[in-house]
């Protein structure tokens, strides 16, 4: 009986740890998403944001360029995409692509790219 109680206590304790861990993970995720959104708005959205261009054109240049590149096969706005992992974003940010120049680690750190990926992983759900 004592052994059973110990097992139950241990299981309950482990359960509490798991719950706490997952809550921490969720909290960390939501913090990463918030940081990622702020960084996306600052560093990416001026070219890749949704809506009209800041000069009244139909789209911002990055969004427009991706519309031409992908046509109907992929959303033009990055915030509508579901496939942009940290690794994928890093390739484009660090190497540049087409008229997009590469960005330095002083401009966007690897951690900030992770945060942007966390944001883009949920942004299309809105």
């Amino acid at each position, binding site marked *: 009986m004592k052994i059973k109680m110990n097992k139950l206590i241990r299981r309950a304790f482990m359960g509490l740890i798991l719950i706490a861990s997952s809550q921490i993970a969720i909290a960390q995720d939501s913090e990463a998403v918030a940081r990622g959104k702020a960084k996306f708005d600052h560093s990416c959205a001026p*070219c890749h944001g949704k809506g009209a*261009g800041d*000069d009244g054109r139909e789209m911002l240049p990055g969004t427009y360029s991706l519309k031409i590149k992908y046509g109907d096969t992929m959303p033009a706005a990055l915030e509508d995409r579901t496939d942009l992992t940290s690794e994928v974003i890093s390739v484009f940010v660090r190497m540049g692509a087409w*008229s997009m*120049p590469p960005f330095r680690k*002083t401009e966007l750190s690897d951690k900030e790219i992770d945060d942007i990926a966390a944001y883009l992983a949920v942004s299309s759900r809105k």
Partner: protein
Amino acid sequence: MAILPPGVSQQQFDTAINRLKSVVGDEWVFTSDADIHAYRDHFSYIKDQPNELIPCAAVGPDSVEQVQAIVRIANEFQIPLYSISTGKNFAYGGPSPNVRGSLTVDLKRMDRVLEVDDKRNFALVEPGVSYIDLYNYIQEHGLKVWVDTPDPGWGSPIGNALDHGIGYTLGPYRDHFSAHCGMEVVLPDGEILRTGMGAMPTSDSWQEYKHGFGPDPAGLFGQGNFGIVTKMGFRLMPQPEHWRNGLVTVPRRQDFIAMVDTVNYLTDLGMIGEPWYSGGLQALMTNTEFAKAANAFNEEEMDRQAIAAGLPSWRVELQFYGSEGTTLANWEYAKELMARNIPGVQFTDGESLPVPLTDEQIQKSSTPYESAMRRNITQGRPGLGIWYMTGRTDFDPNAWNETHIGLFSLVGRSGEAVFKAQRDFADISRRLEMPGFFPNALAVPVNWYQNSFLMGNGFGAAKGNSPQQKKDATKLLRRLLEENAKLGYGDYRAPPILQDDVADQYSFNNNILRRFNEKLKNAIDPNGIISPGRAGIWPEAYADLRGSLRED
């Protein structure tokens, strides 16, 4: 890739890198090819060539003390430095140095907005602050001042001003270097200099009086290589209450002369913001007969066809900042003056809007005429919308203007001077057999700088993105700069690959200006470590590199 600074051994380099790491931390010293990639010019004409201007490494200080330490290490190891603020400046070399193997000092981490005062109307910022950052700071703090932004606005006030960049609002603010007020500089020996009233430790007027007392060396740091600027003050335009625009059109080609004279008068009285000139006859270029006339400068025929088509020869869009009443009065006065000076002139009222304009008002112009203005920049709103010019288009989905380069020549601020420049640029382009666009009688000036015109030329040099095509284009551009100089057209800005050529244009008295600058350079920077070659100023230590990019 392992590029070493000129004359520095691998062992010395490794020791220097370790010393740099001890100053800024391992995380902020970049030596791998992957990290260095972002310090190359994305639009380089010599990309992937043996002479591409690639740094040996990059270092990212966070404070002026760290910049001082870096400069001292560079002196000790004789490593040339090249400082960048946000590293944009595309069309003028991006972040690439003048000397292959330089150590890039990346100031992006020094990104503090130190002060913005909307009663005394100034800002004090660090190099890593971008126009977008400064704009956001002003908005977040509810301050009633504007930034005068270049286009695109991802660069920094310091970097842009130091490269003599421009904006689009009122004249005194559009010349970004002239609008600066006070700077802090780390000199080549590591000492800190403050210009203007910053030289007086107790002064409260650093951002209000830039001359201080005695000679002001601030000009040496614009397009120069006499130090690393770590703080800079700027005069800011107070947010006006109202904005208004209006269009002026004139029927005949020669009317441009009186149009420019009148606009100059209004500009220099401080009554208008940047005037946007445009041609009224571009639509006729699809007509072979008209195109022939425009290319041959046949003014009578151009006028005849313009009148037949009911189109004006020239347009200028005026904009006014102030109150509803003063902007209206200034517009009415502009109309009165134009009507007095130009028979047949016509006017179209634009919009009259309280400031700040809404996003919709900025994005969706309802001006009752086709406006050439990019409205966001007339309202001090930095953005990246204009970057469309380098990217894909519906017309050509695979277009990438990898040869994005800016060459603008100073032209007299008069209609007569513009007419002469049109003919000269067309003639030069023809003689040099430019493969692309030829200037003709429709070419218009830009009035970015209040007191001068700039006209673009050389855009026809690039034919494609291949290395050989870029090499051919570069040769053509060098010849273009030579020919421009013979006729009095100096360029105001250039990428590193053409800076020796532009410096050659300024040849009065056997290039005394450059010789003077180089005497100063050798005295102030005996090891020549600060951006050797910048603006064609070569210290003795690197003098053998002058013109080296011309060799092939």
